Each structure stands twice: as structure tokens, then as C-alpha cells.
């Protein structure tokens, strides 16, 4: 009998630096599984963001570039324009993508660049120590919103998937989560679909993944999962926001 469960080839043996209860590891694994299944490791180039996932390249076994804060979509654009045969994905957090890199993501999506973005939304700046992000929930306490996010002062959290879906350029835009097993299978399917659209040269593809940050939320991993489900999911609704014809 063969093995029924093993580490994907696209994933390395590196021990994780992510905090207990963080979902980056799950998302990494899903990406690696899809890359293995599609047999595209040899032409894959990943782009790591600035933030907790800046070291993402340690966990994968294919070519990787490291971007500056928010600029991963511009780097991906450069790669895909000169090497359309390569498969490219940016892996970005919400501080990276929705704040400092909003310009790059909107324009890359609007140009219909043929790469994939995995957007990890945990409603907070993780690596810099839990400051408010554009995705922070109303009244959510962070180190820079100690009284809770005041939407009268700083606006409502940005729904990036919906924002990108409003662009007229064809794209695959979806929001998923990996906080509980029941969601994970769907998230993997979405990641696979995103890569398939890219492989076919069809369109830009974007998978937002609602995630947890127990450390900066000040919650246990279990509490974090429940907080994400009860607080984030009603606002960040799951599902496809845009599908190409």
C-alpha cells in the first residue's frame, strides 16, 4: 500500500517560524499541493512580500524572489512580461497589499497581468507587531488603535476582493478561508483554479484567504479561529467575486 499522506515536493523541510495558530502554514501547504498536482514546480516563481511571510521562500522548493513592501505585483508584472512561460504568484499580507501596495495590485489586476495573487487577510499588521491594517475590523483593538478601530476617523475595512472585482478587466477573484477543515478543501480548489487560469494564459487570478493572527489578536488559537469566523466572515463574505467568461 502506498503512502496516503506525505509532504508535497514543493514544500521544504524547514521548521516553521510562524506562530502557533497562524494559518500561513496551511496556505503554504495548499499552494505546494496544487503545484505538485499540476506538475509546474519547474517553471514556478514565487514572490514573497514584506511582513510575516517575507521568509516564505524558506518553505518552498522552487525559484523565489523577495519584494519590497507592496511591490510584489509590479515584480510579478516584470517577470510575466519578459517570461510569459513562467508561472508566477505573489504571496501578500493585508498590510503589504491593501495599504502600501494598493496601487500596484489595482493596476496589475486592471492590466490583466497573467499571474496569481494569494492574499492573506488577518486584519492586522503581523510582523511589525500588531498595528492597524486597512482590513482591521471596526472596533478591533490593535497597537495603533488601542480604543478599537474608529471608522469615523479611518474609514471602514477595505474589501479588497470586491474592490478588484469591480474592475472591468476579466479576472478570477475569490475569497476563501482556511480557519476550519470544512473551508480548506474549497480554498485549495480556488488556488488550483487560480493557477489553472494563469497556466491557460486566461486572466489575472486572486485568492483572498481570511486568516488568523492569534499572537497579535491576543487570543488563543482556538479563540482566534472563532473570532475570525464570527467577526470577519460576516463582513468578508466567502465565495467567488468575479469569474472570467
Amino acid at each position, binding site marked *: 500500500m502506498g503512502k496516503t499522506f506525505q509532504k508535497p515536493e514543493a514544500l521544504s523541510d524547514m521548521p516553521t517560524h510562524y506562530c502557533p495558530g497562524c494559518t500561513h502554514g496551511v496556505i503554504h501547504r495548499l499552494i505546494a499541493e496544487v503545484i505538485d498536482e499540476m506538475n509546474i514546480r519547474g517553471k514556478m*516563481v514565487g514572490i514573497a512580500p514584506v511582513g510575516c511571510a517575507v521568509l516564505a521562500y524558506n518553505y518552498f522548493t522552487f*525559484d523565489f524572489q523577495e519584494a519590497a513592501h507592496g511591490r510584489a505585483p509590479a*515584480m510579478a*508584472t*516584470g517577470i510575466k*512580461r*519578459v*517570461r510569459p512561460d*513562467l508561472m508566477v504568484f505573489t504571496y501578500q499580507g493585508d498590510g503589504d497589499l491593501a495599504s502600501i501596495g494598493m*496601487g500596484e495590485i489595482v493596476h496589475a489586476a486592471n492590466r490583466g497581468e497573467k499571474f496569481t495573487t494569494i492574499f492573506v487577510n488577518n486584519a492586522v499588521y503581523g510582523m511589525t507587531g500588531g498595528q492597524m491594517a486597512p482590513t482591521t475590523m471596526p472596533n478591533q483593538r490593535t497597537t495603533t488603535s488601542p480604543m478599537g478601530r474608529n471608522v469615523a476617523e479611518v474609514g471602514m475595512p477595505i474589501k479588497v476582493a470586491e474592490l478588484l472585482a469591480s474592475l472591468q478587466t476579466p479576472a478570477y477573484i475569490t475569497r476563501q478561508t482556511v480557519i476550519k477543515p470544512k473551508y480548506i478543501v474549497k480554498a485549495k480548489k480556488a488556488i488550483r483554479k487560480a493557477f489553472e487560469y494563469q497556466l491557460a494564459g486566461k486572466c489575472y487570478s486572486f485568492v483572498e484567504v481570511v486568516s488568523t493572527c492569534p499572537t497579535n489578536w491576543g487570543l488563543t488559537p482556538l479563540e482566534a479561529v472563532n473570532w475570525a469566523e464570527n467577526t470577519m466572515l460576516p463582513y468578508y463574505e466567502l465565495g467567488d467575486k468575479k469569474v472570467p467568461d
Partner: protein
Amino acid sequence: MKKVLMKGNEAIGEAAIRAGCLNYFAYPITPQSEVAEYLSKRMPEVGGVFLQGESEVAVGYMIFGAAACGARVMTTSSSPGISLMSEAISYISGAECPAVFVNIMRGGPGLGGILPSQADYLQATKGGGHGDYRLLVMAPASVQEAVEMVMQAFPLAEKYRNPVMILGDGLIGQMMEPVAFPDQLRTEPSNKDAWATNGMDTRKSGKRNLVKSLYLDPTVLNNQNLKLKAKYDQMKREEIRFENYNIDVPYEALLVSYGTMSRVCKTAIDNLKTEGLEIGLVRPKTLFPFPEVAIREASRKPSCRVVLSIEMSMGQMLEDVERSVQGGKPVEWYGKCGGEVPTPEEVMDEIRLFLQRYGKE
């Protein structure tokens, strides 16, 4: 070689193609927008990539992404645009990727103006972006030389795996001159499989490549910076380029000037010669590495009483000239930085003034 009359900016675009650079990303800014306009038409004709980015910030990283794949890439911009790209230039230097940046300078600081200037000298030669890095900086004085330097810049960028900057000014970009294009060069870096993220499938080694500039271990980062320093030291040994003008005669003053400004200086020197006054000139063609030894030696000529840094900036190169002369002779500055190019007559007046101050006329 057949000569054609071309505008500097268009010639720079054509030179890139002739150098085998078929990947160009840019954002428009005066006085160099014609490069992008020219290449938006030419790149499709030669099967190349033209993309107008949404900002200079994004363009800097488009260049980074493409360069990291081992592609031959270029962007062009002007002063405020280069400031926005400086972040990417620091990252590209840190990650050791080859790329060519052309800066057709205009007056600053801030929006400044749109006319020629050399006020980005310090930004180009001493940093601009953060961290310990250097660019190899080449300064053309004519459209012909701009073409040649653009074509030399790609192999140099690839030799050192480092960004190279062509530092021209608005006059070089905007004027028309006859120009001949040298033969085409090879199209891609030859050593890229060792480092470029061009897809594991394309490499015999089967090893993955990683392009990054993050080194959290201080010892490792220090070693990386020592490695970069060794590279810049090698540039200092191997890449210094300059031109001497009228230094085989007993000149009374030595001018140091580059780019457009050096052409005015040559006219001033020729005019003064007819009046019986000998003036020498060292023209740096590379601003980093800087021709320190050539300037020092030229300054030591017994007849030379003063060294003048003549610039279209407020004494930015003066610091390097002083450093080169090492106190052997007095060093003075003359320049303008509003977008006006000083006339030969103005330069002649300044030379006379300084000669008077330092003992003659």
C-alpha cells in the same frame, strides 16, 4: 557606419534595442518621455516588451522582477522619477541583479523645472536609496556617446550584477545630433543560470534560485556588504573612464567637468587659447568610479594654480574633485542650476576671476 540625425532620447531607445535589450518599462516624465514614445513603437516591431507602468515606484520593481529572471532590462526617467525609483534601485543592488537606469536630469529639488541640470550627481554616485551600495554611473557628453554608453551599460551591469546608471541631462535628451550605431551585442546575460529565477526547468543543476536582499543575521549581512564593497572596488580598478583635453600644455587652471557642461568648457578653453591663455580639462566619463588619480595627477602640473569644478549643480561634484586633488591645489566651483546651461563666455569670465584670485591676470 552610416550616420543618422536623431534626437538624444530616441537614440537612447534605439541604442537599447541595438544592445539586445528587448525589455523596457517606464513612466513618462519630461525631459525624457520621447524614449518611451519611441520604444512604444519600436519594441513591438522587434518582438520586444514595452510597458508603461502606473508609477515610477512600480516601474522600478518591474525592472527588478524582470532583471531577477535574467532578462536584459532598462528604464529611463528624469530626476523626480529617479527619486521614486531609488527604493527599487537599492533592492536591485542588494539582490545583485543587472539593470540599466537612464536619468535625463532636470533641475530640482522637488519638481524644480524641466530644463537641463546635473543636480542628481550626489544621488547617482553616493546612493539615493538606502544602504551601502553604489551604481556604476556613466555620463555622456553627446548623443553619440549616450548611444555608446547605453550599449556598454548592459554588459557592465551583467559583469557586476549591479545596476548601471546613464546620467545625462535634458540637453542630451532633447538635442538632435548625427549618430552612428555600433554593431549589436548578445541578447542576454551569459551567467544567469547560477542566480536568476528563470525557472528550475531551464537549468541543468536542478537547484532552485533565490533572489533576495534580506539577511537577518548581522554577520551574514556584514559579509554580504563586504562582498558588495569588493565589487565596487573592482569597478574602481577596472572601469574608470575619462577624457583629457588640452593637458599636454602648461595650463594655468584645470577644469573638471562632465556631460553637457564639459562641452561648454571645451569651447571656453578653445576661446581662451586664442587669447593666449592655456586651460586644461579632465572630463569624467564615469562618475562612479571617479577618475581621482587622473585629476590628482593633472592638478599637480607646476603651471596649474587652481582646479575648478564646473557643474550644472551647486557644487555636488566639487566634493569629489576636492577629494581627488587632496589639498595639493586650491579647488573652486562654478555652476548654475536653474535649467540654464552656462555660456562659454560665463565660464571664461569665471576662469579669469579665479586666475586673478590665485595670482595672475
